[in-house]
């Protein structure tokens, strides 16, 4: 199982082993990682699972679809590296990669 490192806005790191196929929002919520809310349960309908992807991880995932881009409008402090973590599916290539979390989801 790949280990993903969730980094809180204050720098606190949470290493979590995520089952391949699970989305990164679900894994964070299951492990009670502060900084990701996931209000809609992964329907891409709330924008509260916003994260930033460093380049190495961004290179491993598809670009956001139109729905995700739309929902990103509802997230805070969005930049070019912003993604909704419920749309990112874990796989073994992601082992050891870091995901950065924003200051707020509301």
């Amino acid at each position, binding site marked *: 199982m790949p280990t993903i490192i969730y980094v809180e806005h204050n720098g606190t790191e949470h290493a979590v082993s995520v089952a391949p196929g699970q989305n990164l929002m679900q894994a964070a919520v299951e492990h009670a990682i502060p900084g990701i809310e996931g209000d809609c349960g992964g329907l891409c309908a709330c924008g509260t699972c916003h994260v930033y992807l460093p380049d190495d991880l961004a290179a491993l995932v598809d670009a956001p679809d139109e729905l995700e881009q739309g929902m990103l409008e*509802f997230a*805070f402090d969005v930049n070019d590296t912003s993604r909704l973590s419920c749309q990112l599916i874990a796989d073994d290539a992601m082992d050891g990669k870091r995901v950065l979390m924003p200051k707020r989801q509301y």
Partner: protein
Amino acid sequence: MPFETQSARDLLRSFPEPALVIDHQGGILFANVAGERLLQPQGIEPGTSITAFLPEDERSRLRPLDWLKRWAESPDAPELRHVHLYCAAASGSTIPVRVRVGRLNLDPPCYMVMLQDVSEEQARQHETRQAQRLASRQLAISADAILNVDERLKITYANAATHTLFGYPAGSLVGKPLALLLPERFRADHDKYVHAFAAETSPARLMGERAEITGRHADGTELPLEASIAKITTDRGQVFTAHLRDLRERKAQEANLRRALSSLSTIFEHALQAMALINPDGTVEQMNAAARQLLPSGFNPQGQAFVALPFWSDDAQATRTNLTEALDSSMQGTPVRQAVGITMPEGTHRTLDFSLTPVLADGAVVAVVAEARDLLEDV
């Protein structure tokens, strides 16, 4: 005015929830009383753009008018249930609002926007979520295995320590039968035990209140465990929650201690020198075989005052004063060594090389060891 002739505008005006009518460019055409109270009690100038009531914040990318139009066309859009807009309220604070939009078929179209202040709901939700996070962190770092089981004795939750203790990969125990964690020979009894506990009135049984139980590691070895269990009645029936503590280390320590103690007591009992263990109150705790030989047969020294034992010489007074002083100083922590005369049961005298050694534990004298070696036999 009778109800039939009341205008739609008047009805909307007194509608208790904040409502706005906007044109297709986002200009506010009308705000009801509740809407003005929320946004601008002095009254909203017709034509003011709704964007004027969005807080200046990090959501700069949000295009609210596009969303309102989209939601007017699809009132079942899933995001309508989950997203909040934030408005800069008259109170100066930023308030999360849930939005509903309806399209008014005019030309060009207008939109009716209903706002619902959800700040309290959101605050409550945050509190609950924080409490949940804290609780789940506590479970995650607990050294005790903590697991929940439903009425059918299926595992519904198991913390990290449970997986480590029983040797299963993280997260793999949920959904498995509790029996998996028990040795075969205990399964039937354990089922009965849980059902009996379910039926009784007490809400919990704590560690120490019940005997040790035995668990089964994934590799088949047995684990001695201490357990607390509690039951909680939920909407979905009873849930049992168990805290299990691994007793392997404690057991191993106990066994080590027992081994060490039995070696020590063998050494003590069979030493060639006469030895006695004296309590802080001056009574004899134990004497070894060599020391017991100095006593009349059948005499039980345990609990007797050490200085009053029968073998001390006949000039008893002097010997006793001397011994009492020596014992006192050893009880203060100072070892003593001197020659002492004793009388054997059959009447012979001997002089012994005699020592008193304090036994210290945590800085306090808990006992004194007396040892004696024959110097020479007086005739």
